[in-house]
């Protein structure tokens, strides 16, 4: 069984929103208050460190769009054939062609025989 402080500290670290009751606990408990302050300091240090280092070039989006043109994606056949509705349509088309061929075969094989007096 976790202590209330452990539960609180896990929630603080995960960045979960604390309700009023929990906030009151953090403010009233020396250990949790210290923990929350340490966490804030760490988060702020990491975020500032990352923010200072990260700089997105102004023309980054332009370059991405130019690369898309070079790649000339259009509609990729693999993507196109991977779509569910395309697969269903193709499957139904296959069944329809199979049925038509079967009917053609039956008619071509049996009807001429019957017309010449044979027994189907």
């Amino acid at each position, binding site marked *: 069984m976790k202590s209330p402080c452990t539960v609180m500290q896990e929630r603080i670290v995960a*960045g979960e929103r604390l309700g009023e009751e929990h906030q009151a606990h953090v403010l009233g408990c020396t250990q949790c208050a210290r923990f929350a302050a340490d966490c804030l300091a760490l988060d702020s240090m990491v975020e500032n*460190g990352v923010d200072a*280092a990260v700089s997105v070039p102004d023309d980054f989006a332009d370059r991405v769009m130019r690369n898309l043109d070079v790649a000339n994606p259009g509609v990729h056949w693999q*993507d196109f054939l991977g779509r569910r509705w395309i697969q269903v349509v193709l499957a139904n088309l296959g069944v329809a062609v199979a049925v038509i061929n079967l009917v053609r075969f039956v008619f071509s094989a049996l009807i001429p025989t019957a017309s010449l007096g044979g027994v189907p």
Partner: protein
Amino acid sequence: MDDGFLIHQVLGGNRNAFRLLVVRYQRPLFRFLFGFGLGPAVTEEVAQEVFLRAFRSLSSFDPAKATFATWLFTIAKRLALNEGARVRQRAEHVAVDEERLPAADAPSAQDKIERSERTGRVQRALQTLPETLRSTLLLAYLKELSLEQIAQIESCAVGTVKSRIFRGKALLRAALVNSEE
């Protein structure tokens, strides 16, 4: 304009909608990739590749399974891990590129040095974390993803995400304290 609408527009042939998605996610993506210690040039290359792959396979994106952000960062994580492994193999030391620091307010030389040191310390501390903890922690620092979304990207339970963040921050704090000494 939400992501769903923009994706619908892109699939209908409107490329400008994809540009809006790029602009929306470029900074979080760069921040995420920074933590893998790839260096500015490689980070940019990987970020470009992430968007390129996202564009190419956008028709296979299923909004019922994941949000666009989750899907995009899953691609980014995979590419960053591959690239990170390649960088480590080449054993290149990637220094923080001071030229790319924001030029806003024309910081003094002293400011630049301090900022560069701070950035370097954070990046080095992040590199000391095990890969799974680092990736989860970086996603958590983006602030744009919920714990559920992070769990989806990391293919683990929400409880595991919380525990990784907890352990990751403890290790990160220790690493930063060590680097101060």
